[in-house]
């Protein structure tokens, strides 16, 4: 290198590909994980729309419910559910790599941590479903 930071020799600088995320299985799975996070934002938007309809009176609320029951929205909801299940499951799996919980001298195994996270997720979902159906 010269004092002003330039190389004294020629180099070839390869240009990164725009489609790098299609190159291998792990890259594709990463892209899927990131893209499915957008569906969490879509759910938040739907919830906001729901609250807006609720605050606008019974007519708006009924219209919103009817919209949700249309075949197109039902199909879209199924896509959202699948995307969020994938995103959550993969995120929990990654979490077990990052979080280290020690019991005494030994770290809790990753499989036990993943089981605890998935168990808590299922329990909370079941509780929400129970209150939604019965109350």
């Amino acid at each position, binding site marked *: *290198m010269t004092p002003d930071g330039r*190389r004294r*020799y*020629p*180099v*070839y*600088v*390869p240009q*990164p590909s725009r489609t*790098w*995320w299609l190159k*291998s299985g*792990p*890259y594709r799975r*990463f892209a899927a994980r*990131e893209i499915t996070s957008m569906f969490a934002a879509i759910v938040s938007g739907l919830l906001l729309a729901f609250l807006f309809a609720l605050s606008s009176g019974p007519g708006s609320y009924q219209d919103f419910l009817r919209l949700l029951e249309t075949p197109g929205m039902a199909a879209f909801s199924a896509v959202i559910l699948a995307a969020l299940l994938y995103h959550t499951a993969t995120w929990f799996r*990654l979490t077990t*790599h*990052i*979080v*280290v919980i020690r019991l005494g*001298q030994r770290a809790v195994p990753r499989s036990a941590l993943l089981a605890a996270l998935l168990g808590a997720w299922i329990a909370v979902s079941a509780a929400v479903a129970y209150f939604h159906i019965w109350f």
Partner: protein
Amino acid sequence: MAEGTMTLKVARYRPEHREKPYFDEFDVPYREDMVILDALNYIKDEMDGSVTYRWSCRMGVCGSCGMMVNYRPRLTCSTFLREFYPKPVVVQPLENFPVIRDLVVDLTSFMDKLRQVKPWIIRENEAALESGEYLQTPDQVEKYKQFSMCINCMLCYAACPVVAKDPEFLGPAVIALAHRYNLDSRDQGRGERHRAIAVDWGIWDCTFIGECSVACPKDVDPAVAIQREKVAKTTDTMLSMVLPFGGQE
């Protein structure tokens, strides 16, 4: 033992001859116990002395002979030809680095990044020499040992799409090394090091693709090191906001 020949397609970059890289094909004698580096050495000794590459220890310790083997970052001294035989093998320089010649890449930017994270033990007040060594228990060593096994082979940089997109990214090995010293019970430089790594081109640039850890030949797991530094930095920042005398901000 299978015998015969095997074709190596070797990437060449000789700027005095051609502006862009190209491939040369070499048919080398095949033996089951040959690694890619043996084949390259055969080519250099017997077929074309101008083929240029780095190597040193030939036993997976020095980290010099990392290259792209069939488009994956590998140590050529521990990648056997038999994994690919009888199909041809493509050997290229490590991705995400400027190429100087043939299979040799320019590591200048990595060396600059390495210095930035101060990969040595930092003490606020150095104890007097007479007081002896800074002692550690086996448990204290165990906490950072995995992250101290890095051989700076750069395979993780070649595997990382973030490095490809943002050449300024400090990268997996450098942050893993910072993590190693941050975990060391003898070290007191965590705050100082966080100022170097908790930046847009540091830990926050990583999107946890995780391929660096897959490529690592020493199971260092740099992806996890980066995420744990994110957690540590966030914890330090939160503590500094609520504790009367601050955390390690």
